[in-house]
């Protein structure tokens, strides 16, 4: 195993924990975006560029958009 892979593994482990640990949804969206990018790195070092590409467009564009739209909708009253 190469150092780059080890580093990516460690980052993903921390990232996953962070996503769960951040209880404020708005901040969590940000952390989720970062976690997605770390996953992209992991997939690249696992020699899976196609999957990394999928993860990139999903976590950089699609996920934040729907999450933010949903949170914006529900911002009042709660």
């Amino acid at each position, binding site marked *: 195993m190469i150092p780059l892979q080890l580093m990516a593994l460690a980052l993903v482990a921390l990232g996953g924990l962070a996503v769960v640990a951040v209880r404020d949804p708005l901040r969590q969206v940000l952390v989720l975006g970062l976690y997605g990018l770390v996953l992209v790195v992991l997939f690249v070092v696992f020699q899976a560029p196609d999957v990394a590409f999928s993860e990139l467009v999903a976590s950089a*564009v*699609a996920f934040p958009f729907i999450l933010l739209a949903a949170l914006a909708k529900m911002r009042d009253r709660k």
Partner: protein
Amino acid sequence: MSRRARLILFGGSVTILVALLVWGLTGLPAFGEFQGQYGRILNSTTQSSRHVGNVVAAVVFDYRGFDTLGEELILFASVMGVALLLREVRDEGERPRDEVRSDVVRAVGLAVIGPVVVLGLFVVAHGYLTPGGGFQGGVVVASGLVLLYAAGEYRAYRAASPSSLVDLAEGAGAGAYVAVGIAALLAGGLFLENVVALGTTGTLASGGTIPILNAAAGLEVAAALVLLFQEFLEELFEE
């Protein structure tokens, strides 16, 4: 059950479950030593039998194209589900106003849209040669359209994606995939059999039905996400 009781119960059982999981995982081949014959055979034969360089694309749209048909329909079903859930008798006359942000944002946004959509189409088109393809490119195309919204041009965004047209594209993307499968039956093959001429490796016209299915997936994904974004946006502007 109190939260405390739940935590204790969960803590105990998840420890056991993870222990079991680890026990199972120790039976895996060491990392990097996997010798699965399925993947090895596909790696060695795809280029000659399918005239396509990207084996992953060949698996997605040919060897296991039937799985992808199902995956595409999951996407389709969830978007239909969102539309069903967020349905509401919306007043068609009342359009949400454009939230004009700074002119700089607007100018940058508008300047970027064209290139993003072109990039998306490029990603869709070259999926079976290089990394990328209908699934990734479709998301890029849809995000280009969303930029219209981000640039404050909600009206332009709506004009670029009228509901009935998006519905049509969405249904057509899903339907085209199934239709290609049925076309193979009509041509005397098995469902989704790659009956089209395979072309020359490395060119856009290679791979037989792979580019067709890839394009159908691209259309489906792009339309699905546009529809999805639209539903969430309308929800946002609704009183």
